């Protein structure tokens, strides 16, 4: 009787063990592959945002904005990105994904600030240009008017001087 009950139990145990062993073989590999893929995607995403940030920062800089603060924060993002790539290279995919995600978050913040700075710098540049142009136009007008008036005054003075001259009588001793 005992033997009859023991055999099915033994079979169930064997099947369960086999299934467990199979799961152990398959799931860690699957998790490994997923992690590597996720880490690569996270790094790609982080790289994209850092490049995009850099472009916005360059635009803000060319518009005349002070980007030193943004560059310092972009450097932090760059350090995280390099860490992520190094971690990926030594197959520390969790570390790589973590660093890449942090880099992405920093990048998002920096990009937002950079866009604000770019807008501000462009507005300031436009205003500066406008004032400079008004100044130039006013300056050129004043110079031209002053030159014209000076010329007229000088011409009047010149004619008066010429007309005021008396011809000298020279005695000829021929």
């Amino acid at each position, binding site marked *: 009787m005992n033997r009859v009950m023991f055999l099915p139990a033994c079979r169930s145990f064997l099947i369960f063990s086999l299934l467990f062993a199979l799961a152990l073989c398959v799931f860690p590999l699957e998790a490994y592959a997923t992690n590597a893929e996720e880490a690569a995607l996270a790094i790609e995403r982080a790289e994209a945002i850092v*490049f995009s940030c*850099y*472009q916005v*920062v*360059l635009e803000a*800089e*060319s518009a005349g904005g002070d*980007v*030193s603060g943004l*560059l310092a924060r*972009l*450097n932090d993002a*760059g*350090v995280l*990105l*390099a860490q992520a*790539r*190094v971690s990926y*290279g*030594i197959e520390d995919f969790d570390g790589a994904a973590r660093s890449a995600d942090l880099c992405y978050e920093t990048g998002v913040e920096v990009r937002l600030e950079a866009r604000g700075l770019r807008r501000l710098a462009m507005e300031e540049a436009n205003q500066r*240009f406008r004032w*400079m*142009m008004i*100044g*130039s136009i006013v*300056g*050129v007008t004043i*110079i*031209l008017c002053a*030159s014209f008036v*000076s*010329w007229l005054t*000088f*011409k009047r003075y*010149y004619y008066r001087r010429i007309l005021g001259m008396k011809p000298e009588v020279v005695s000829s001793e021929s």
Partner: protein
Amino acid sequence: MNLEEYRTIFVVTSLTLTLVAAAPTLSIVVPFPRSGERFSELWVLGPNRMAENYPFNVRVDEEYQVFVGVGNHMGSSAYYLVYVKFRNQTQPFPDAQNSTPSPLPAICEFRGFVADGVTWETPIVFSILEVSRLEDSCLVRRMMINDVVFLVDSSSTWDSENNGFYYQLFFELWLYDVTSQSFQFHNRFVGIWLNVTSS
């Protein structure tokens, strides 16, 4: 002087003053070519941040420090990438004439955003962790750079002229190009020779 000559003087003076008054606006509207050469600097310094006392005779498990720096004179902010590479005496070095980097894989990398006219420097602490040696060959298996262990697997043969197993730790400078949206080799590289004989 007659009146015609006076008029010429007046016209020239007026035009000169007009140009001076319009110069600030003209400088924005008319694109003037930038003067000066655009370039980047790359350097490696010893542990005291001086160009001396570079690590040379290295031992296993001992830490050595150098500083790698980049100077930006490109006229605007730049995004730099420094690749750290390790080679023996026969492996290829970057080619300055053809502006090609070394085909060797990078051990690790450093990135920096540098404003125009500003320098950027980073410390690099490295140690050689595992070396196998046969009669006239030496194999460096692993290296640690800034607390991260990297597989190197680089072998070197005995240099009978200089009596040693020589390796070079070198740094390549790459610059991000906005047009191509990728890093391009910037034709700047610098390195230090290491003798692992005494390890």
